[in-house]
């Protein structure tokens, strides 16, 4: 008898604070969840490039505002992001490669790291051919490093 009473009491005396802390934890978790953004306001921008014939072999076009450089060589078209993979500064196309002003990372003409703290190569963006035959540069999607697109044939 005595024991039973006690165990009920001790159950309740443990259960009550557990309920309190448990509900606090759930509430706290939902507060954290609230601050975690789900709607990422990131416009997936597309740039109209025109016809493939506008970009003969050897073309280099810098889109400063959009932070991308478009290249055309014998293997095809490709677009390299100028956003440094270290800490997000914008690198500068020097004619030979990309130099980052912030902590001195240097990338070669394909965007591969050659110096400095950047952990990986610059991002390559996807180039699409629209039904009209026009090209479109998709800043919302990246492709594997080194993937050049042949559009002539």
């Amino acid at each position, binding site marked *: 008898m005595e024991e039973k009473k006690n165990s009920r009491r001790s159950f309740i005396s443990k259960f009550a604070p557990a309920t309190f802390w448990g509900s606090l934890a759930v509430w706290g978790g939902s507060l954290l969840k609230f601050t975690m953004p789900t709607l990422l306001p990131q416009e997936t921008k597309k740039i109209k490039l025109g016809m493939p014939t506008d970009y003969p072999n050897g073309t280099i076009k810098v889109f400063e505002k959009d932070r991308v450089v478009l290249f055309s060589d014998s293997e095809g078209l490709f677009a390299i992001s100028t956003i440094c993979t270290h800490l*997000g500064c914008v690198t500068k196309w020097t004619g030979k490669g990309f130099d980052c*002003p*912030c902590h001195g990372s240097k990338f070669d003409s394909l965007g591969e790291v050659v110096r400095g703290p950047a952990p990986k190569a610059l991002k390559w963006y996807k180039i699409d051919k629209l039904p009209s035959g026009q090209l479109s540069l998709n800043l919302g999607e990246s492709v594997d490093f080194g993937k050049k697109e042949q559009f002539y044939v």
Partner: protein
Amino acid sequence: MSNQVENDKKPSGLDTFLTNLKHLPQSFKDAAVRHGPPSSNRAASQSVFSNLFLHIHSVRTHRYNFKKTFTAGLGIASAASFIILVITGILLMIYYKPSLLEAYNSIKDIHFAVPGGRLMRNIHRWGAHIMVLAVFLHMIRVFMTGSYRHPRQFNWVVGMVLFAVTLGLSFTGYLLPWDQLAYWATTIGAQIAGSPVEVTDALGITKILDVGGMQMRLLLGADVVGEEALVRFYFLHCILLPLILTTFIGVHFWRIRKDGGMSRPSVITEDMLLGTPVDEVAEMAFPTKNKTYGLMCLVKGDSNNVKNSPKQTVQSWPNLFNYEMAIFILILAILIVLSFVSDAPLKEAANPSVPENPAKAPWYFLGLQELVSYSAFMGGVAIPGLAVLGLMLIPFLDKTRNESGIWFPDKGEKSVFKSSAIFSAIVILVTLVFTVNFGWLRNWFPHIPQIIIVLVNPGTLLTSLFVWWSLRILNKTGSTRLGAMAIFTCFIIGFVILTYFAYQHRGPNWNFYWWPSLWPAH
């Protein structure tokens, strides 16, 4: 004492009213302040403990606390700068508009159009610098005087929270002008928060558990620095962080009292009290025996008061308040002079396609920026994280109970301080000269895996050397205090040299230059 004859004649209602009206200022004062002017010791004591704002002080203060070479008033200086920052900050909020379109222009208005706006902005900017400096020096003082020791371990931890929140306030405030400096410093800072991605990438688990990305998104509310980031930073800077800081300053001050007042050595001679206020009455008022106040029995553990005679105390009113006001006025004067000498910077409006070159953080983050230029994760997250954790744990790993409240209380501390300073200075200089001249791993092995650079870079090398040195001291002397002294000194010297180096010798593209005047024009 009214006249007997007039006693039977009741004053008219109007008379009473007029008399009351005449006495209004005095009666109001009597109601607000229940005791007379603090001319007697008793009234002075009442002034302290019956006033909400003053009662955080004790009624009497030990003379040792006034010793300028002990605290240098640095804690008060931190608090004074914070108060000035709150006042000027509230004023700036009247004109500042936290939106992409308006932020930059509203700062421009404050700076160039609002009457007194430039002064207000300058004081706020300089106040931030001075506060960080004061907090930093205060922490050094507390460490060097061994004042984190029992029973003050917890207050040291509270202090570390204050340190971190102070830096957080500076960082979030930096974005608000939305100029080039602001935009790029924040971009870099946010990417540092995201840099654990270097490690998760190397482990190949970024897709499952992207800690870095989550941290960055939590901070920015997006993947890039934009309107969401500005609103979040504004909220953190103007509401959340000041609230947290105010709360913890309250806890900090409360604990100073509860920990038995300020730390002080067990024997205090008259010589050591030279230049502090004196109270002749105390000599007679307190019995010669080292007796403590009855209430002290309620406080657990031993306290410093037990060791020291109340004879060495003086009335807090006016001694302590004069001291505090003097420091407040000094800080205010320094800020006003600085504000007239040099304006807070405002570059061109933020331009996301062209970074500032070089994009330098405020001075107290420059040491970190140098480390980050070796590895984002190590320099920006792991090493500072370890440093803060290590600092926080000092009182729990060094539990020696020797003297506190004097500089270098233990035997051999001064020499460990000196040798550690020399050791760390040499090691840092050699590392810097080496990296500037010969580069680092990637210059020699272009295809080296990133994870090796993350693990082995000048930053981790220096950190390991510092740890090795301190363990050696710990082993050789068998004293945890001396081990702590070694690592703390290395940390301070490292901070100072790296900050200086990045400030003075890093230019465009983070290249080495002897002087800023040698930077190429661009």
